[in-house]
Each structure stands twice: as C-alpha cells, then as structure tokens.
C-alpha cells in the first residue's frame, strides 16, 4: 500500500503539468454539464461544443475560473427564463460575493460544485469535502453554497410555472422568488444540515485520533442522513429517502477516494521557475521529495534504501 502510495506521489510530482489540467477539465465538465441539465433555459449555452471549450479553458487557468464561469452560466440561464429571474440570480450571487466569498476566494469552487453535486443527487459531497480539507469556518461556505442551490430549486419550482402562465407580471415573479427563498423550510433543513456536517467532519478530522478522517466521513454521512430526517420531521418536510440514502452513500464513497488522495498521497506537484543571473538563464523544475513515515520495519528498510540510492 505504501509502495503504491509513493508510486502515486512520484507519478503526480513528475507529471502534474498534465495531470492537474485533466482533473480541472473533468471537474469543470461535470459542473457545466450539471448546470446545463438543471437549468438549460439559455439555448446557446446547452451546446456541447461550447461546454467542452469552456472546460478546456478552465483546465489551463486557475481553479477559480470554474466557479466564475459556472456562476455566469447560472445567471445567463436565469436570464434565458426571464429578465427579472436573471436579475434575481445576479443580485443573489453579488450579495454572496460581497458578504462572504470575497474573504475566502479559495472556497469559490464549493459554490458551483454544490449546485452540480446537489443537481446530480449527491448533496453530501461538498459539506464532507469541506470538512475534510478546510476548517470549521467553511461551514459558512456550505451555508452560502446551499442558499445558491436552493435559489435554483426555487427558480425551477416557482418561477418556471409563473413564466409559462401568461398573467404574471415581472414584479409578481420577483416577489414569488423572494418569498420562495424566505419562506423555504427545506432551505432551513439543508442549511443547518450542511453547516453541522462541515463542523462535525472538521472537528473529528482535526481531533488527532486514529483513523480520524475515515471516522469523520462515516459520522459526517450519518449526520447528513440523521439531521435531514430529524429536521425534516420537525419542519414537516419529507425528503426522498431513496435519493437521500443513495446520494449520501455515493458522497461518502467519493469522500473516501478524495481523502485517500489528499491525506494518504499528500501530493505536491513539481514547481517550475525561470530566472537569470549575469551569466545564465535558468529553467528550474523542482520536484518535491517524498518520504514515507512508516512504522513497519520492512517498509522502513525499503524507504531507507530508496533514500540511500538518491
């Protein structure tokens, strides 16, 4: 297992120039396809070639390009439904940006990933992932991301029927959307559940106990199911049991894979620098050294031998 882990580390360290863009491309593609499937009211954005080009664009730019394009896509889809719905979406994302996301630009990806994963039926992935990789403060990220997701469901449930009924004015639609957000009991259930899951997972993960991240994922998944059911019961909201169980199960599985790569492999990519002195121009590729911290003597001997060879 440790040999496999070191092999993975070395493969990543030496080929991150190609692996990272592929991962970014896959995440961007999943996000954009999900957004198009959930909303899809702006016809030109549903073009698969455009989605592929946008994903390729995200692959070569920093991670935050994905939420930026994702949010623009959501707003444009809402504009495709109606001017007033688009304006509501733009105002909501602007409020989220001003009051929260400008302080944690690194969490921007969670905003669009929540929309994509909730749309795909796995709402637990982002809260568990945030709890594993970020601190307890990310509970606020989960709350804001869930608000954005619930807005999309409100648009689908409230604004779409009103737009098709010809007797609704723009003001009626806007007020219905705001009312749908403010009086939404499911929003409360989702917000409290996500925030609690992030807090529980991050607390267990940072507790220092053995198998902390595995326990954190399992407890996080149980908390996701338990809190959704309990709060749903209190607020008289009945979540779909099958999709809740299946979605949380898949979310836990994906979180295990994520945790394996983040904590076990603890990958660090090669770094590339270019600089010069009076005589030369240097092109440096710095590959991080990987060392296993193993207790097993056989594995330890293997590591020492490797280091000696270096």
């Amino acid at each position, binding site marked *: 297992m440790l040999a496999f882990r070191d092999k993975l580390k070395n493969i990543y360290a030496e080929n991150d120039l190609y692996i990272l863009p592929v991962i970014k491309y896959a995440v961007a593609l999943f996000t954009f396809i999900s957004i198009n499937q959930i909303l899809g009211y702006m016809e030109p954005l549903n073009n698969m070639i455009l989605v592929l080009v946008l994903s390729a664009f995200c692959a070569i730019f920093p991670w935050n390009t994905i939420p930026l394009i994702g949010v623009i896509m959501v707003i444009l889809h809402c504009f495709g439904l109606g001017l007033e719905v688009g304006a509501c979406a733009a105002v909501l994302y602007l409020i989220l940006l001003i009051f929260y996301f400008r302080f944690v630009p690194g969490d921007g990806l969670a905003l669009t990933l929540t929309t994509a994963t909730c749309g795909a039926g796995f709402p637990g992935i982002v809260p568990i992932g945030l709890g594993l990789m970020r601190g307890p403060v990310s509970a606020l990220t989960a709350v804001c991301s869930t608000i954005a997701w619930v807005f999309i469901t409100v648009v689908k449930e409230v604004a779409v029927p009103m737009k098709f009924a010809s007797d609704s004015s723009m003001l009626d639609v806007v007020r219905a959307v705001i009312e749908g957000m403010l009086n939404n009991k499911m929003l409360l259930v989702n917000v409290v559940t996500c925030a609690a899951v992030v807090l529980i997972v991050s607390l267990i993960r940072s507790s220092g106990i053995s198998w902390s991240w595995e326990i954190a994922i399992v407890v996080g998944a149980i908390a996701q199911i338990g809190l959704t059911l309990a709060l749903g019961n209190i607020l008289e909201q009945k979540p779909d049991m099958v999709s809740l169980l299946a979605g949380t199960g898949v979310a836990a599985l994906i979180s295990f894979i994520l945790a394996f790569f983040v904590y076990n492999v603890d990958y660090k990519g090669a770094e590339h*620098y270019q600089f010069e*002195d009076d005589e030369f121009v*240097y092109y440096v590729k710095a590959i991080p050294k990987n060392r296993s911290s193993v207790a097993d003597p056989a594995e330890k001997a293997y590591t020492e031998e490797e280091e000696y060879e270096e």
Partner: protein
Amino acid sequence: MENEKKLHQMIRVVRFEQKAGAEDLRINKYYRRDYVAFAMIRNFFIVTIGYGLLLGVLLLYYMDFLLNTLKTLNIKAPLVAIFAGYLFVVAIYTVLVYTICSLRYHRAQRRVKNYYRELKTLRDLQKLEEMRAQTYAEREQEG
C-alpha cells in the same frame, strides 16, 4: 560546490518571489496603517452596495407593508431601522476587515523579513564568489 550552493539559494529566493511571496511583497510596499485604511475604505463602499442590494430585495418583498406605512406617513420607525441595520452591518464588516488585514499584514511582513534574510545570504555568496575569482585572477597574474 559554491556555485551549487548559490544556485540553491537563488531557487529559494525565486520560489518566494514567483509563488506565495508575490502578494506578500505587494502588501509590504504599504505602511500597515495605509494598507488597513485602504482596505477599510474599499470595504465601506462594497458593504454599502451589498446592503443596498439586500435592502432592495427586502423592500420588494415587503412592498405592501411599505406602501401602507407611507400612507400613514409614519416612516420614521422604518427609516431608523434601516439606518441602524446599515450601521450594524458596516460596523461588523469594518471590524472583520480590520482584523483580517492586520493579520495578513503581520504574516506578510514576517515572510518578507525571511525573504530579505535569504536575499542577504545570496548576496554574501555572490560576494564570496567574486572575491575568489579576484584572488584567482591575481594569482594568475603573479604566477
């Protein structure tokens, strides 16, 4: 060997300049007071826009209540509530931005101090190399 040492030192310096240090060096150009004040002024305008948007959304939702209040000409209480809410939000975000920017400035300053130390080591290595080259040249001339 000395050249290798110098090369390693150069990489250490460049790592800072081209990766995490770029932002630190930008922050370090300001005095702490200027950096925090600039961030707080910018925050004031951003929060004002945000509060305006939030207020607009709520006014749309409570439009009936607002129209009834306007009819009774009893608008003092809602206006006071709106202004008090604005002051509360601005105060919270001002404290938040002040704390975040002060912490960010102190951390950047600490890292830049380390960077200058690395830079000094590099300069010393460069000087050493030059002195050696000079000594070597003088010996060549003598011999």
